[in-house]
């Protein structure tokens, strides 16, 4: 059988491979444990210093060796092996230990989650949180509600077949709005797809959102992308990509350009728990650490990546612990506590810019909506679980309790805002629906900076064909 022969073949080759590894590692051990060359005479008794010398000479010898390939002293053993308790590795000192102890893959104790408001919207005593003004608090709250209502209405529009696709941000309103509030509008945003609130905060209008979802000729994306793939240069918000996590290395590259220009701003990139598994995430965070660039990695750990729960996504204590592995300062925050997020992102931004360092934030939250309109999440998770997060942990309600307790918000203000936003949205949708679809020219422009000849010809050709065979073409193609 083909497969069994393959098995035999590869077994042999693996054994062969193992043998060669064994040989190599033996050589390697030998070289490190007993350097086969005489050490320079020690003038100090400090074991640390002797270790340094040892490392340097080892290193030096290798250079020498490769340069000349001859070393007559190779076979002589040192007179006396120095005591080494610390290995002075190029990036820092590493202590030796005679104990065989593997580090634990996981710890009982999980990294704590930074929170300043409890479920009842009451400040937790002794919490480190920034003071925020009434104006800011109210704007944050009203934008959270606007986002919630926008999601409800666009979702319904999709269910009615008026747009082809939609995905809500429900449950992650605090992450969207509070993080945006802590940034400067000059900071670049590299979003996944569940952060339209950042754009809302920066002034993208409900009408602009509606035009994009309807892919009409006023869509600032010219009808080129699926609904919710927003982007706006004016708002320093890069266009959403469908491919999960490609934005993360892009954010690092953009942060590098800010560093080159010595700008007082930073980059933030958002991604999900699922996105944190991609090769792009790992490459990006490692590069950010090495390049020392001002970028905030904001992971929205919402428990699910479509139907994949986080315990099938990774076995680490979430995403926050990866920061340490890559040498990046990190924090875990309660993703449903707007004030904690605001404070954490403000702090991260300051560090990123002043210290030119990446920062990783993991916000723990829950995707209380379906993944998208193509998904029915009750097929893989319990309604009880969803309801619990919608109730006790609801980020919008929690923030409302807090601003109400401050006397900054009222029942009347609440219903007025709701009515107002609903009205604006239904008008926006009706208007977007009436606007005609993009022109035929929009199919060809922007493939390149300047329209090349072959595309000009194609465009002319298609116009002519449509004119000639009108019956074969849809009527909604503005020529």
């Amino acid at each position, binding site marked *: 059988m*083909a*497969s*069994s022969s*393959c*098995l035999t*073949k*590869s*077994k042999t*080759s*693996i054994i062969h491979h193992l043998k060669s590894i064994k040989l190599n590692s033996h050589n390697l051990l030998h070289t490190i444990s007993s350097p086969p060359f005489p050490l320079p005479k020690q003038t100090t008794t400090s074991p640390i210093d002797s270790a340094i010398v040892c490392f340097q000479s080892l290193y030096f010898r290798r250079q020498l060796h490769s340069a000349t390939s001859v070393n007559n002293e190779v076979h002589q053993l040192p007179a006396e092996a120095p005591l080494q308790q610390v290995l002075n590795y190029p990036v820092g000192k590493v202590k030796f230990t005679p104990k065989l102890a593997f580090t634990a893959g996981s710890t009982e104790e999980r990294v704590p989650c930074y929170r300043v408001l409890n479920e009842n919207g009451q400040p937790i005593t002794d919490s480190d949180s920034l003071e925020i003004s009434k104006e800011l608090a109210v704007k944050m709250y009203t934008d959270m509600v606007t986002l919630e209502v926008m999601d409800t209405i666009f979702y319904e529009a999709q269910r009615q077949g008026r747009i*082809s*696709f939609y995905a809500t941000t429900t449950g992650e309103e605090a992450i969207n709005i509070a993080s945006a509030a802590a940034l400067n509008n000059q900071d670049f945003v590299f979003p996944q797809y569940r952060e339209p609130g950042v754009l809302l905060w920066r002034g993208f209008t409900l009408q602009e959102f509606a035009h994009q979802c309807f*892919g*009409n000729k006023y*869509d600032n994306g*010219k*009808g*080129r*992308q*699926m609904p919710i*793939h927003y982007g706006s240069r004016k708002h320093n918000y890069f266009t959403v*990509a*469908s*491919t*999960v*996590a490609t934005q993360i290395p892009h954010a690092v590259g953009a942060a590098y350009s800010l560093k080159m220009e010595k700008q007082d701003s930073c980059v933030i990139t958002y991604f999900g728990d*699922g*996105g944190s*598994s*991609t*090769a*792009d995430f790992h490459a990006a965070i490692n590069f950010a650490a090495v390049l020392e660039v001002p970028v905030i990695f904001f992971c929205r750990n919402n428990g699910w990546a*479509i*139907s*994949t729960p986080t315990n*099938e*996504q*990774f076995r680490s204590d979430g995403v926050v612990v990866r920061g340490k592995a890559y040498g990046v300062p990190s924090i875990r925050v309660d993703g449903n506590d707007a004030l904690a997020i605001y404070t954490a992102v403000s702090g991260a931004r300051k560090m990123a810019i002043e210290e030119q360092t990446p920062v990783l934030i993991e916000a723990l939250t829950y995707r209380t909506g379906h993944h998208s309109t193509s998904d029915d999440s009750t*097929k*893989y998770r319990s309604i009880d679980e969803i309801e619990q997060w919608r109730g006790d942990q609801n980020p919008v309600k929690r923030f409302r309790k807090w601003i109400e307790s401050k006397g900054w918000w009222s029942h009347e203000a609440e219903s007025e805002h709701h009515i107002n936003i609903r009205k604006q949205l239904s008008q926006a949708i009706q208007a977007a629906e009436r606007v005609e*679809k*993009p022109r*035929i020219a*929009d*199919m*060809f422009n922007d*493939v390149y900076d300047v329209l090349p000849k*072959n*595309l000009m010809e*194609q465009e002319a*050709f*298609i116009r*002519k*064909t449509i004119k000639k*065979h009108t019956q*074969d*073409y*849809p009527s*909604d*193609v503005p020529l």
Partner: protein
Amino acid sequence: MRGIISQKLGGLSSQVVGNYMLRLRPAASARHYSSATKEMTVRDALNSALDEEMAADPNVFVMGEEVGEYQGAYKITKGLLDKYGPERVVDTPITEAGFAGIGVGSAYHGLRPVIEFMTFNFSMQAIDHIINSAAKSNYMSAGQINVPIVFRGPNGPAAGVGAQHSQCYGAWYGSVPGLKVLVPYSSEDARGLLKAAIRDPDPVVFLENELLYGESFPVSAEALDSSFCLPIGKAKFSQCSSSVDRSQIEREGKDITITAFSKMVGYALKAAEILEKEGINAEVINLRSIRPLDRATINASVRKTNRLVTVEEGFPQHGVGAEICASVVEDSFGYLDAPVERIAGADVPTPYAANLERMAFPQIEDIVRAAKRACYRSVPMAATA
């Protein structure tokens, strides 16, 4: 729309003018299939093929995002987790580069992985393992380590999902030595080719089409048998006629050859029906395999019909049509009575807006018009320009 129409027409040659006038004769079928007894969707065809191959060979396993618990983004792996357990139906983190590489490693060691990409667009994250690992290992190990792996998933444009979800990778993978690239159209294709892919000792890229999953096709009793398998590298003739069962019969074509793969086979067959009403007898070749490409079948057909239209949804430049055209020019140039017509997707990334999206891909009318042009039945566009 027609992606490109490149060639200027030569003068009308008198010898070809009468060709299209030939009426269709009831054809003698070269081979008899058992009559179709059952209808089956492409989804069920793929699912049953996977199921049967997993039952037959314990080394076969399925891996990809959401293939287990969720039964696949398009439900192709439905029921497999219950039947074969989580060791053989493996849900993965979102790391295409990871599970493609891990799949290749498991194939080095004798397993037969079937790797599902949610869509082939995401295989771009893993293309290094498909090309540099899977496709080249047998060669680089001097035949010591073969890679019996299948990479499968929906390919090509779907509906309303924009540029990053709508692209045909047929020509991409079709250009790589070491890979085999299969492109099923019907349920029978899907069953027969997937089984062949899983049993094959080489890496196979298996390009499905999301919009075909729900379509039903008649399947013969033979195709329903668990031993059923189609040969890799063989195209299928089928010629359209309203009076004969259109998908199962091989028969002589006369006036024009239309090559297509995947969803475009259906379009080509519909175009052939329309053409027949106008007296043009088209022969449709369902490629089934892009690599190896069945050059013999294509050239034999063109030598009979003397005309060729190629249809694909991918980009025109360096496309499958370009390769077919080159093959015919090399091998059958003297038989051509008209310039080859290539129909392809427009040379732009796929737009989302429904009106523009429709314009970006071949439609049935485009095939009909191109075929008529090749048969000199309509005033060519170039001549009116």
